[in-house]
Structure formats: C-alpha cells, structure tokens
C-alpha cells in the first residue's frame, strides 16, 4: 500500500513537471504567431484570423498546466518568517492543516470551473471579433489545470504523511536533482 502510494506520488510529480516543461515550449509558438501576425499585417495587409484567441489559449495552457509543477516543486512565494521558528513537528502539522484548507477550497474552485466550462459549451460561447472561435476549450483548460493542481496538492499530503515532507517548504535537494525551477540559468 505504502509502496503503491509513493509510486503514485512519484508519477504525479513527474507528470506535473513534464507538463510544465512541455507547455514552456509554447512560448516559442506564441512568439512566432505574434510576430507572423504583425509582419503580415504590416507588410502585406493580411490579417491572420484567430491569433489573438489562440495566443490567449496558449497563455492559459502555460499558466494552468504549469501550476501543478509549482506545487510539486514548492516554488510558490510564501512568508516563512514565523513558521521557520516552530519546532519541526509543529511546522509539519501546521502545513498539513493548511493543505486540508487548500484541498477544500481548490475542490470548490475546480468544481465551479468545470461547471463554467460545461455552461460555455452548452451556450456555444464564442470569442468577440470578426471571427468566432469557440471558447469552451479555453475554460476546460482552466478546469483541467485546477483539477490537476488539486491532485498534486493531494499528493503533497501523501508525501507529508508517509515521508514527513512539508507541503510548501522549498525542498532544495529535489530542486538540485534536476527539477525545473529557479536555480536554472
């Protein structure tokens, strides 16, 4: 059981990090799309349809598919002045308490986001402008991202219980072991 849970945690972390790495590559697509659109408009009076909407979608992918990795790697900004002074066990217990709150609130947020995506699909929501691009995939992306973030936070809970790993504290060792993140470049 313990082994299975830990394996699942490892796989989740790998998935989150892989997803973030993959979506990072989207920046190059974003760059090329924006440049091509403006070049064609300026030089040839041609407008590429949908660049605006697709760029926004790529940004959403960057943000929401990148979010789980920020939890997996514990790189979200936080104030640790007070908790650093607590005994280790108390600090971990407090982290666990906050994680429960986070899981509850993310569940609510993810639930509402799924409903929002579904509603968008039902009413055939489209983008504003001369070209109508359906927006339900955009909203679905948000819901998927929040759900994965919830799952990643849940996995942080498993790691806390089985490994005594703090859900928010930056783990330098993991970072050095090749995680994407702040020490790069």
């Amino acid at each position, binding site marked *: 059981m313990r082994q299975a849970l830990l394996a699942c945690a490892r796989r989740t972390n790998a998935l989150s990090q892989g997803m973030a790495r993959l979506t990072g590559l989207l920046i190059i697509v974003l760059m090329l799309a924006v440049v091509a659109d403006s070049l064609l*408009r*300026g030089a040839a*009076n*041609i*407008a590429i349809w949908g660049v*605006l909407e697709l760029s926004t979608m790529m940004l959403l992918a960057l943000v929401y598919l990148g979010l789980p990795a920020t939890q997996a790697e514990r790189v979200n900004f936080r104030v640790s002045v007070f908790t650093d002074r607590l005994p280790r066990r108390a600090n971990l217990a407090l982290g666990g308490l906050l994680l429960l709150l986070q899981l509850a609130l993310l569940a609510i947020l993810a639930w509402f986001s799924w409903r929002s995506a579904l*509603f968008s699909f039902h*009413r*055939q*929501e*489209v983008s*504003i*402008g*001369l*070209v*109508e691009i359906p927006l339900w995939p955009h909203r679905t992306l948000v819901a998927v991202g929040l759900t994965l973030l919830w799952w990643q936070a849940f996995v942080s809970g498993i790691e806390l219980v089985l490994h005594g790993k703090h859900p928010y504290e930056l783990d330098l060792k993991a970072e050095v072991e090749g995680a994407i993140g702040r020490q790069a470049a």
Partner: protein
Amino acid sequence: QESIKLKVASNYPATSLFSRVQKHMLDEVTASTNGRVTFEWYYGGVLLKAADVFPGVGRGAADIAFTVPAAFNPREYPITGVTLPFLTENVQAASLAFRDWYNTTPAVQKEYQRNNVRFLLAVPASENVLWSQKKVNTAADLKGMRIRMLAGPGDALSLLGATAVTVPYTDAIDLLSRGGVEAISATPFEQGVKDGLPEMVNYLSSAGRMGIYAAVITAMNLDRWNSLPKDVQAAFLKAADNAIQYYAEAQGKDADESVDILLKAKRVQVLKMDPQEEKAWRDKTRDAILKKYHDQVARTGADGNQLVASYTALVRKYEQSHPYQTGIDRYFARKK
C-alpha cells in the same frame, strides 16, 4: 414591506454615458418606491468582465446587467443583433422601436427567456464614424486600408475592400499614432472625440452613414424579476420608458460638446460625403449583411428577414416623430 437590494454589473466605466443613463433610471426606481428598492453598483468589469455580464446575470451572479450582448455573446443573443449598419442613425427612434419590437415579438422575448433574463431597456450607441489618416471619399479609397474594425461596421468595411485589424481598441489608438493601422472604425462619434482622436488623425468621415451598429441592453435576472411585487415591476418599466428620453437629451448634449472640441481641433478635417457614394456603400453591402443576420438567427428557428422588417417599420415610425441630427451633421450646421 421588505426592502430590496439589487446588484448592477457592467463592463462600462461609471463615467460613460451608458452608465449615467442606468444610474438615472435606477435612481428613479428608488425614488418611486420610496427607497424600498436600492442598488449596489459594479462598474468597469469589477464584478463581471464584458463577456460575463449577461451570462453572469442569467445565472444569478448579479441582478441587473447592462452591456452589448449581441457583441459579447453573439450566439446567445443573435436576434438582439438587429441594430445593423445602414438601418438608422436615430438613437431615440432605435430605442423606442426596440422596446415596442420586444413587446410585440415572441421570438425576441424567447431569446431573453432562454438566457434567463428580463429585457428592460435598449440604449443604442450613437452613429459609427471613420477616423483615418488618408482621405476616404469613395469605396475605392478603402482598398487595402488597414482599419481597426469589428461588429457590423467591420462586416461592411471588409466587404468594401478594407483589411480588418482586430486588435483591442486601446491598442488600435496606439497603433494609429504610428501607422500600424490607417483608420479606426466601430466606435461611436462622441467616444472617438473624447479619446483624443481629432488630434491624432487627419480625416473624419461618416463612412457612408452606417449609423447605429450596437445597442446597450439593460436586463434583469428572470427569477429575480418574477419575485418582484407587481408595483415594483411597474416602477422599473416606467423608469425605463423615461430613460429613453433622458438618454436622447444627454446624448445630444454630449454630441454638442464633442462638436465644440471638433470645431477647435487643429489637425482633423471633417469630410462631407457624397450622398450618391453613401448609397453605393449601402447597396454594395446590404445583402451580405442581411444574409449574415439571417443565418445567425436561423439557428434559433426564427425568420431574420421578418424580424428586420418589423424592427425597421417601427424605426421608420418613430423617426417621423423624433428628429435626430448626427454628430457630423451638427458639426457642419454650426461651422457655417
């Protein structure tokens, strides 16, 4: 009697003419119900962004919405998009006609019911104009011109040969100053003046008198509406009727103020378009624009031609009783 507090949401800023009209109307509701009904205001997209205003109010995130659902939610409000270019310039006639059209046309009522809101008021934006760096007198002048456009004027200008640039309005103003776009369209006359366009472009034209191309609609969450006592509902409908007159006067005053600015502007030259050419613009685009409306409306099973015909008939009726002068016409009248 219990007091009622309603949340009002829009993407329009508090200072805009549209918001002032709503404020006037809802203040009247508060007064006529002796303070029983009060309002909590959320302007500028603070609560709901443009595309969320109508769906949000339909789902109870706020009680009253005002914005242009036909532009921001075209699939949900296809019939409401009846304010097509080249149909009328007269804001008051368009507003009164829309009210009567709603009251007498089941297909229109169904559109609002389907989205779970109750229609209260239509406030048409004043006429479309074209702010350009190059002189635009004929359709040939538009060929290949990069114009910021959307909605009805966008369809018309594309059909006449212009290149559509769909960047946001504020980006467009920025691009205009550096030649990235050569003209800006799809903004009401007074709006462009307020935003400083007379000092940024060389020419202002009526763009073939496309006239009104969008209407700001005020609507209430349907469940909320049904829960209101009959006398309160009546107070809303009466205030909405009075708001039409208030808007006509306030809009006229804004147009006059804009003309003041335009008369003093050093850079911009206001063009007088040849009526023959105006007719040519209308004739070249009319069928395609009507067809697009027809196709959009067809999804709901309604007959677009019939809807346009009945709306147009009402507009013509009110045009007789309520004369209107466009901003550019006011300009030439005062310049002499």
